[in-house]
């Protein structure tokens, strides 16, 4: 049955592909390669951290080492969670039909809510605590001008990261609200 809706829809101008198929394949390969590199970097970093913790950490415990370790560990944990989230979402896209995927999205974003409200502030707080441990060492090692620069740049960059995280959280929470069943 054809009605006015079909007529309007069929009158649209024909879509010209924005990319050639070979470009899409190239982009797909680049994306895969980046994912593999990301996974490798994260695995190596985690491996080094664990090895360091087991073998070296008890021998040279000081505030600088603790601070550095907390900073790197909190960052690796948060990045790993983000990476895992994305992989889960892609797996959902590939395996589920529309109805299942909508249901899955609701669970997924509920879980993200938990990540945003609990894990992210914890990781961010831990990173800050780690960073604060380093400042006395920086003060002793660098000139007062460079030390001030380090403090200012740390405050600015952390504020910017906080703004980006808050924006992303807001967008995801808004999306969760919009999901209708």
């Amino acid at each position, binding site marked *: 049955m054809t009605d006015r809706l079909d007529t*309007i829809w069929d009158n649209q101008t024909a879509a010209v592909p924005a990319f050639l198929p070979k470009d899409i394949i190239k982009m797909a390969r680049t994306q895969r390669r980046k994912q593999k590199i990301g996974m490798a970097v994260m695995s190596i970093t985690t491996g080094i951290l664990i090895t360091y913790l087991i073998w070296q950490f008890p021998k040279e415990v000081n505030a600088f080492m603790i601070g550095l370790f907390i900073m790197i560990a909190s960052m690796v944990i948060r990045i790993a969670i983000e990476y895992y989230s994305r992989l889960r979402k892609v797996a959902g896209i590939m395996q589920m039909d529309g109805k299942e995927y909508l249901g899955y999205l609701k669970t997924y974003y509920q879980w993200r809510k938990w990540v945003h409200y609990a894990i992210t502030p914890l990781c961010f707080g831990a990173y800050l605590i780690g960073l604060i441990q380093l400042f006395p060492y920086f003060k002793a090692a660098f000139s007062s001008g460079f030390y001030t620069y380090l403090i200012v740049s740390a405050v600015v960059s952390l504020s910017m990261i906080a703004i980006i995280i808050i924006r992303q959280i807001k967008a995801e929470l808004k999306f969760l609200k919009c999901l209708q069943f």
Partner: protein
Amino acid sequence: MTENQFTDTYNQLYPKVYRLCMGYVSGDECTAKELCQQTFIKVWNHRSSFKGDAEISTWIYRIAVNCCLGHLKKKKPLKLTIDPNTVADALEDEESPANDIQQLYQCIDQLKSINKTVILLELEQVPQEEIATTLGYSHGSIRTRLSRIREALLKCITHDR
């Protein structure tokens, strides 16, 4: 799937997937292109997961639909600027296909996510059984929904005119 098969599938299905995405994002060309690109990148990267137990088009529509459903909307408020010199032209163009499609996009945007995809696939002349498989509903349920959605959309475009 070989590169040649992918090329054929891409050339054949791109227009349909693009229009599906356009309808989903209310005619936002940039986002529609991005969603299309994401869809076909996933098709290539996960081509080994296609078992061939359904039509390749069904599998691709499902990926496209899920990409659209999971897209985090960045809605921009519509800015209406009225230029007195263009009002006359606009009135003459009121019945133009461009206006009609914009109006239809706006009406589709008012539907629930699943209903949006149902009507968009139907408008792309995807068989109802394929729509049912893509979205995970029974054929009967899709038929009933479609009749309600069509009625609502026809009312919407007539009312807005």
